[in-house]
């Protein structure tokens, strides 16, 4: 098979993994040195495909041959797809060539399970080692970890990779048992603990060998089973606290060819995925607890974002006075992000806040209007009930109906 053909097969096989982050790596430079590549902690999106997703890394599988039969996966062994396998040299050549042309900032390598877990994991590690040791490659490397691989191989992976990830795949262990019979929640979590321990060691001991400085992340597929957002966010919250995760990625399930009857054949739930990312962000960055965003079973509202939904359910806390309120509360106002909240706090040390300041800070005025007061502004809607206020806020342009 030609290299181009392999690339088509193995990029197609890898694109269902949502992560494309190239951030969080330590500062590295190749200035005047043998080798290639630099990282400085920031990610770079080198291109965007028409699905709106960024291309930051060369995201490929080493091979899409796979012994597992995960129902949601295009590469499951019962799937009738063309199969291919890259050699180590081919991956190295592609990575370096694309990198020199400034098309990517590194490599995101994953693989189907061939022969055995350790055999597969070792092959992935060999690619990373070849890039780092033989070619002095200092760009970003993200390795997908095979959950059942031995801890020793995971440690070797952490030596070369900037980020490691193990996918939890599905929101609950019941769904995993049903749709991915060869995988187990226990071993997945075991691998995540091994990575967490490696991260802890590297932080605690300055002389410890380098270990995945960009941390670990995971991905869960949304919409392949019928788990609701309440359960998802609850599980995500404990994932963050148990495994020192940098990120949980949500991947709306895209229907696959020859779809098995166990998974839906419908368009990917993109808006739901978007709301989950928003809720996730509120949990990570704003100190929200999953239970605050969804108090009972069910899904996040698709009409309004989770922060606005929360604020509408807590009218008794608003409006707040921007000259007095805690920064923590200011950041909870819909339409005011954490950066703006910080800026408001700095500005009010100089003088009192005026309504027009918020426009200049780039806040979303329509959203924040009912929830704040300033010395020159008081919301007219203060007395409105939740429903009436919601109706008033939703008088935006009617959405165009989808074609077909």
């Amino acid at each position, binding site marked *: 098979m030609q290299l181009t053909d392999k690339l088509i097969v193995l990029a197609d096989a890898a694109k269902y993994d949502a992560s494309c982050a190239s951030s969080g790596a330590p500062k590295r430079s190749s200035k005047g040195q043998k080798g290639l590549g630099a990282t400085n902690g920031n990610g770079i999106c080198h291109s965007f495909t028409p699905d709106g997703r960024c291309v930051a890394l060369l995201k490929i599988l080493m091979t899409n041959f796979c012994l597992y039969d995960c129902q949601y996966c295009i590469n499951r062994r019962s799937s009738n797809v063309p199969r291919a396998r890259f050699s180590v040299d081919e991956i190295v050549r592609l990575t370096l060539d694309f990198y020199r042309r400034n098309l990517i900032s590194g490599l995101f390598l994953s693989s189907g399970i061939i022969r055995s877990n350790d055999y597969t994991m070792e092959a992935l590690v060999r690619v990373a080692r070849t890039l780092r040791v033989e070619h002095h490659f200092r760009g970003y490397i993200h390795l997908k970890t095979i959950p059942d691989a031995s801890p020793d191989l995971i440690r070797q992976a952490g030596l070369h990779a900037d980020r490691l990830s193990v996918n939890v795949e599905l929101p609950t262990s019941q769904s995993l048992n049903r749709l991915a019979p060869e995988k187990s929640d226990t071993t997945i979590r075991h691998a995540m603990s091994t990575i967490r321990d490696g991260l802890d060691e590297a932080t605690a001991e300055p002389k410890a060998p380098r270990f995945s400085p960009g941390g670990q992340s995971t991905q869960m597929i949304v919409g392949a089973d019928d788990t609701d957002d309440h359960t998802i966010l609850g599980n995500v919250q404990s994932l963050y606290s148990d495994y020192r995760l940098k990120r949980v990625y949500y991947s709306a399930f895209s229907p696959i060819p020859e779809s098995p009857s166990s998974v839906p054949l419908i368009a990917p739930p*993109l808006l739901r995925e978007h709301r989950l990312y928003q809720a996730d962000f509120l949990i990570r960055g704003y100190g929200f607890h999953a239970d605050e965003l969804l108090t009972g079973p069910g899904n996040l509202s698709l009409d309004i974002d989770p922060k606005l939904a929360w604020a509408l359910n807590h009218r008794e806390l608003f409006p707040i006075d921007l000259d007095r309120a805690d920064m923590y509360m200011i950041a909870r106002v819909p339409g005011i992000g954490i950066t703006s909240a910080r800026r408001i706090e700095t500005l009010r040390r100089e003088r009192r806040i005026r309504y027009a300041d918020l426009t200049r800070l780039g806040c979303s005025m329509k959203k924040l209007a009912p929830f704040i007061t300033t010395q020159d502004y008081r919301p007219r809607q203060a007395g409105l009930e939740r429903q009436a206020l919601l109706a008033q806020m939703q008088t935006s342009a009617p959405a165009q109906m989808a074609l077909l």
Partner: protein
Amino acid sequence: MSMYTLHMTQADFACWRDHARRLLSARVSPGEVLWQSEASAGDLFASSETDLPPPSETPLALKLSKQELRRLECASHYWPSHHQECRWALLYRVVWRLALGEGEALLAGDRDGAVIEQRVKAVNHEVHHIHAFLRFHPQPARAGEQHAPEFIAWFEPRHDVLEAAARHFIDRMGQHSWLIMTPEGAIVCDGRQWHIERPESGAFTLQNYQPLTEMAEDAEDLWLAYYASTFNPARLNEKTMVRSMPSRFWRHMPERVLITGLISHARHGAQQLGQDSRLATRRGRTIALPAKPRH
């Protein structure tokens, strides 16, 4: 009230800073200064010979933190359009207000601070653009030309981002030699050192650049294969793509030739499945489990 005209011979931040120091120590208010640089022609009310008054008995002076200084310098890299305020006048008004004790002048909620913030953001965004969307073209080694760069690129930035680009790419490219050409200047790097060359008059053009390139033939096939295959037609979302990658950059990106085709193909049927349609028609292969049961 007399008007003082200051000529920015080198339109750079250090030059402005010297001027600003002298103006503050002479307590010249922003309204009394005309900044002349680049394209701005003469002003009727300005006499170009006006000397600055001697330092005032109560001179103003200002100590800025490193961070504040960096912020001002970054804002000075913004190229205003013709209806926007001259960058040096804006900067001077801000430091004047700061010197008078108006600490808010540099904060994003302030009238001037908001403009600074907007310019800093635009410059940083453009730095990010050149880091991301610039494309190097590898050059075949030419006999007898040892000094020809191995990689060359053309880019048309909206603001002054050459230095930021130079520092970024020298970290990335190791000992490779490269050349980045933009209308306002070129970064030349031999793999150890870099410097910026400015056009002798006017601007560099694509016509200056093109004769330097010698494209390798299969150069882009692999990248195009990857781009089309990593695209998921079931998630078509043009708006986000265009918002994140403004079309002014497409012209010099190889993937431009694929974009419209991928979109229309996804609209007309491929949208249901995520798989690349080139693969759908190909013979596939299911995998039998090995005879020995696995544990």
